[in-house]
């Protein structure tokens, strides 16, 4: 039983809460609801106040009239009674009783069935006479109706009428009605002072008031509803165009640049529509101009690329020929041939990376996704980097954590492989011959890869700079490897193209770690990365008493919003298509604030070209064929 009640309470509480939250939600989010609701509430308040005032005024006026009428009626009846008693010839109480009885029943009580008044004749409260006449009055009326207070008032001032309003049980209608009680004293022979009370039930007044209150309620309700309906209509006139404007703005934001608002009439809303359309026109023009510029830029890059590539191919072949035959030359020429050979590699790497990054900048990079096991990719990359690892003395391991969760994601395998190769090669090069670990894990919606080294690490603030183009950790450090300085920048762009995250942490002397997180399904946001606590560097890594600061400056370069999204990627894309996706204007815009770190960081890049510490490795080591010539990377030609 109690359980049932509790369950019922719980259910009704939850229903109440749901209704409450729906209302609160509508209140917050819908202007029209707010307008109508507040109009209804205020209207109701006004109607209630006004109704109450009128009701009271009418009520008291009716009551006063009734009291006045009652008093004059009672006055004349009292005078009649007094005259009767005065002229009565009675010698004893019994004969007096019959006189009184005749008086009360014959004259004071109204004749007929309609009892408009009731009478009570009772001994005055301060009457001490020994002779008692007894109380008499209208049949069916108890003397309890007459309160002591009015009786005392009558006795205290016998010359005047006393009036009181009481709740009275009317025997005629058998219901409670308010009634006017008018009392005054009469002098009765032998028995002394007696009080004569007349009770006038206010039947008609009560009925009138009830009628008035019913009319007020119904009228007020209708009025309030009418006002609410008017408010609804009026609010609608404003809200509908606003909603339409909002829908148009949304479609415009989604890239439908031809979307315009209908502008009819000359009112404020038409003005809004006109201004909006003017803004849309201006935006469209500017976007078209930018697109035109972008096309010109792409065309230029494409042409430059083509023009450069053909002679470069010739030079490449000539250099290889000379390089193969270098033993036939003198020492100087032979060394020159070697330098020519290696620098051509670098030149090719640089050209390819520049083209790749310009493709990102132009928003021409496209995803070509395929369900891919990142663990397989990681092993392939590590195998490919084995010779470099051997030269550096680093041991590279690949482990899959939470091996029950799949590490298969819908990614562009070529791009992810390029990211992983960049990270692994980078870790080996800066790992100072120590162990490099590649760890993978998957959860429901994402797969993450962490590449960690135990090398020079990153100084505070550097973690946000590593993704900058041509950034050099330490300009004074001798450049030992042939990175282009664009590898990590390209990797970051590749990660973004997947709606993924690429983040760096590090501490000087402890090491650096890079985490790549990609969504398992194209277009679905990442909730949390399978590796959450990457910032914490395990203690066994520390050496040389290096500080264990959580490296506040070594924060995730892609700042995250509360929802866990990198802020600049957080807004939901209005239109998603599966598989191949072009980065359109948003890409163009985003490319401008792509580089994490202080504004204009790209321009502040180091001018010293020689040394490189944590500079990015080439996105594509031509030796390892990172950017395979056979792999078209973007949509536009080069």
């Amino acid at each position, binding site marked *: 039983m109690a359980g049932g009640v509790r369950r019922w309470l719980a259910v009704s509480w939850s229903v109440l809460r749901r209704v409450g939250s729906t209302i609160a939600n509508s209140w917050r989010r819908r202007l029209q609801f707010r307008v109508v609701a507040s109009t209804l509430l205020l209207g109701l308040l006004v109607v209630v106040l006004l109704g109450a005032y009128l009701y009271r005024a009418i009520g008291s006026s009716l009551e006063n009239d009734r009291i006045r009428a009652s008093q004059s009626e009672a006055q004349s009846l009292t005078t009649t009674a007094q005259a009767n008693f005065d002229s009565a010839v009675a010698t004893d109480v019994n004969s007096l009783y019959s006189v009184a009885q005749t008086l009360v029943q014959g004259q004071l009580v109204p004749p007929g069935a309609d009892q408009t008044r009731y009478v009570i004749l009772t001994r005055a409260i301060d009457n001490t006479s020994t002779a008692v006449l007894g109380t008499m009055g209208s049949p069916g009326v108890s003397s309890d109706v007459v309160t002591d207070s009015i009786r005392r008032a009558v006795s205290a001032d016998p010359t005047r009428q006393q009036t009181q309003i009481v709740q009275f049980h009317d025997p005629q209608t058998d219901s409670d009605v308010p009634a006017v009680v008018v009392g005054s004293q009469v002098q009765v022979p032998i028995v002394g002072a007696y009080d004569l009370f007349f009770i006038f039930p206010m039947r008609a007044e009560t009925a009138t008031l009830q009628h008035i209150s019913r009319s007020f309620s119904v009228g007020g309700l209708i009025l309030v509803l009418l006002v609410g309906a008017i408010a609804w209509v009026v609010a609608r006139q404003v809200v509908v165009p606003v909603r339409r404007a909002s829908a148009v703005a949304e479609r415009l934001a989604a890239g439908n640049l031809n979307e315009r608002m209908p502008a009819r009439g000359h009112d404020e809303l038409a003005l809004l529509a006109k201004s909006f359309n003017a803004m849309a026109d201006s935006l469209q023009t500017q976007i078209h101009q930018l697109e035109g510029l972008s096309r010109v830029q792409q065309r230029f890059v494409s042409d430059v690329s083509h023009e450069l590539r*053909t002679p*470069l*191919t*010739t030079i490449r*072949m*000539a250099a290889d020929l000379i390089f193969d035959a270098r033993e036939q030359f003198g020492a100087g020429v032979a060394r020159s041939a070697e330098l020519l050979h290696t620098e051509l590699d670098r030149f090719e790497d640089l050209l390819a990376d520049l083209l790749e990054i310009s493709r990102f900048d132009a928003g021409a990079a496209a995803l070509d996704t395929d369900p891919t096991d990142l663990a397989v990719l990681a092993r392939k990359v590590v195998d490919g980097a084995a010779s470099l690892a051997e030269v550096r003395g680093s041991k590279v391991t690949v482990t899959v954590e939470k091996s029950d969760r799949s590490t298969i994601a819908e990614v562009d395998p070529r791009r992810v492989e390029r990211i992983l190769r960049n990270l692994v090669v980078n870790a080996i090069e800066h790992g100072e011959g120590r162990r490099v670990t590649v760890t993978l894990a998957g959860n429901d919606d994402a797969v993450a890869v962490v590449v960690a080294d135990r090398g020079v690490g990153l100084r505070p603030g550097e973690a946000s700079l590593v993704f900058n183009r041509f950034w050099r950790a330490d300009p004074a450090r001798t450049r030992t490897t042939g990175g282009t300085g664009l590898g990590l920048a390209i990797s970051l762009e590749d990660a973004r193209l997947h709606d993924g995250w690429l983040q760096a942490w590090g501490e000087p002397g402890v090491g650096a770690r890079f985490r790549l997180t990609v969504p398992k399904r194209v277009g679905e946001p990442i909730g949390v990365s399978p590796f959450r606590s990457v910032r914490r560097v395990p203690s066994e890594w520390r050496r040389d008493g290096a500080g264990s600061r959580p490296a506040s400056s070594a924060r995730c370069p892609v700042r995250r919003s509360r929802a866990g999204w990198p802020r600049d990627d957080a807004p939901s894309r209005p239109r998603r298509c599966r598989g191949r996706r072009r980065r359109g204007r948003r890409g163009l815009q985003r490319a401008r604030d792509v580089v994490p770190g202080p504004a204009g960081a790209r321009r502040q890049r180091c001018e010293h070209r020689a040394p490189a510490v944590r500079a990015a490795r080439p996105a594509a080591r031509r030796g390892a064929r990172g950017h395979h*010539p*056979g792999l*078209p990377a973007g949509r536009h030609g080069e």
Partner: protein
Amino acid sequence: MKGSVLIIDDDLALAEMLGIVLRNEGLEVSHVADGTHAMSTFRAVRPDLVLLDIMLPGMDGIEICRRIRAESGVPIVMLTARTDTHDIVVGLESGADDYVVKPFKPQELIARLRARLRRGDEPEAERLEIGDLVIDVAGHSVKRDGVGLSLTPLEFDLLVALARKPHQVFSREVLLEQVWGYRHAGDTRLVNVHVQRLRSKVERDPEHPEVVVTVRGVGYKAGPS
């Protein structure tokens, strides 16, 4: 390596350099710089392989490719400075067997050319069956019910590679290595395009292939014989 190569390229320096490199490999090299003369030179030289630049004055590489393919199954390797997906797919669909993106390493180019010219080596007499097809490797012929099917050398190589190990599933990477001579991972679409072309010739119903069967997520294998 033996054989003759026709270079169709308007860049004289590159063509000359290619000539030097290829001659070093023992190949005979001829050259035409203009698209309009490409076909007549091709008919005069009858090369074992064509190295074709896509961007040419006169007639563009894609059109030349199409015309050569219309009259010959000679291996065609495209040279391109564009990595545009569309261009490459169009090139492959117009009949090119392979493509090399500039700038390339000479060794890579030679490896590909070698893969395409391999048939010059004497193949062993070998008879393979795949589906209801009978392949005579030495005779370079494929017959269904005694009727010969006309395949380009590349398509033939692809079919033979699959037919030699009828139960093995070949990943696209493995096929790239075996048939195209790629040393490193390459463009797997190359495989897709040529499998489609092969199917259009050897399958009774290319929509429901029985000879070259797709193994989802892995690659291709020969159908049951």
